């Protein structure tokens, strides 16, 4: 039925057309490294180990939240929202790829973005715990996204002047993306918070879920403090007021009276220091399963 000369099989046509060009087979899976072609020289005065850890922190925030968001694929309340959450996840994955690649270069022992994403266990992840909290209902996912995107936007706006040109460029690119994410999440927060009694109740529950993890966003790790002194990082404690002020009008419009707890009575695990909730291990088990089952697979 299929002679060698037929090209009506899409895969045959694809391989023939693109033979000799490994970048092209299976569109969308161009596994060239994220910083391909970018000048990745590290400025002499920057502490490489600290820079590597810092990029891991910001990269893991994006990677883990991206994975949480794609859990909505095939499960979102409307097709448009599914597309939106997948797009946001894709933006975050792009940020994660660049940051993990930067981390690997700074570390200097040959770990690339894939090694860092797929072959680290939970205790080696440095993301804030708010990023790993299960998505829960749509309301919790939206409120968490609002908080993380607004916080990340404030952070990236400072980092555009970071004394690492690659980090500064990643932040400059990310500012536009995070603005868009925060606006999307803000619109839904208002729609649900200021919606029916029932949706309002659900948003109050979301506030209660997010609140214990809010303070951690502004707790500086020693690595962040050291790098902030060198002008490479931003001390997250300096973002607290700005983020609170940015969230206030959204929460007001959503009729959500939320005064974040400054110091939770039982502090949750400190993600920046490698402590996590069991949810992260479960998330990683799924995310890493294919790469770990086929560690030498080539695409």
């Amino acid at each position, binding site marked *: 039925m299929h002679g060698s000369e037929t090209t009506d099989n899409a895969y045959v046509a694809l391989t023939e057309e693109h033979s000799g060009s490994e970048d092209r087979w299976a569109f969308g899976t161009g596994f060239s490294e994220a910083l391909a*072609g970018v000048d990745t020289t590290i400025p002499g005065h920057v502490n490489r180990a600290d820079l590597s850890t810092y990029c891991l922190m910001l990269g893991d925030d994006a990677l883990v939240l991206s994975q949480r968001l794609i859990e909505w694929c095939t499960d979102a309340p409307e097709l448009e929202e599914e597309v939106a959450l997948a797009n946001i996840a*894709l933006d975050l994955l*792009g940020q994660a790829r660049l940051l993990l690649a930067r981390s690997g270069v700074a570390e200097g022992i040959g770990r690339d973005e894939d090694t860092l994403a797929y072959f680290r266990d939970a205790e080696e992840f440095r993301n804030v715990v708010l990023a790993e909290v299960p998505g829960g209902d749509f309301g919790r996912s939206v409120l968490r996204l609002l908080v993380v995107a607004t916080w990340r936007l*404030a952070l990236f706006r400072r980092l555009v002047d970071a004394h690492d040109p690659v980090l500064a460029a990643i932040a400059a*690119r990310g500012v536009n993306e995070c603005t*868009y994410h925060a606006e999307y999440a803000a619109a839904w927060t208002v729609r649900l918070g200021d919606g029916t009694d029932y949706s309002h109740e659900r948003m109050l529950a979301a506030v209660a879920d997010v609140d214990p993890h809010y303070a951690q966003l502004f707790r500086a790790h020693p690595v962040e403090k050291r790098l902030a002194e060198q002008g490479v990082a931003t001390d997250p404690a300096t973002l607290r007021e700005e983020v609170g002020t940015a969230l206030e009008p959204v929460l007001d419009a959503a009729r959500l009276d939320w005064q974040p707890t400054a110091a939770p009575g039982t502090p949750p695990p400190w993600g920046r220091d490698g402590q996590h909730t069991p949810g992260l291990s479960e998330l990683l088990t799924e995310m890493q399963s294919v790469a770990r089952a086929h560690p030498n697979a080539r695409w």
Partner: protein
Amino acid sequence: MTTQIPTDPWQVAAQVVDPELPMVTVADLGILREVRTDPRDPAMVEVTITPTYAACPALAEIRADLRGALNRAGYCRVAVRTVLSPPWSSAWITAEGRRKLAAHGVSPPGQAAPAASGPVTVSLAATRLDASCPRCGCADTELLSRFGPTPCTALARCRGCREPFEHVKEI
């Protein structure tokens, strides 16, 4: 000095189309930033591109297409460099690019918001859309979804002819 280069490499690179918006070229979109030749090596060319979105899945494809097109034009050694800074802006889409997008039913981006300064704010402006319908020209349009089928587009609808259309986001 005597080797004849067949075609201006910028012209060759500028013909490469975007894999997701094939009505426009990488030059139309402003992704193609620079094409440099080496006076000592006429078969060498260095191309500089800036991705639209960090995770744009088309980027690897674009790199390969640029290499392929320049190879075929006689440049054996092609380096494709990615520059992240300054970040790509929809303002970089050329007038020709905008015309082609509209002609193919994709609404070109409006004015990108100026770079914000001062403390962060989160806009609650609901469904503002700076676009005319690419089919009937009607200016009465609404945003259906901030996110469309590709990272750089949103979904909109014309209130005049009721047709939905893709709109390139302002960033």
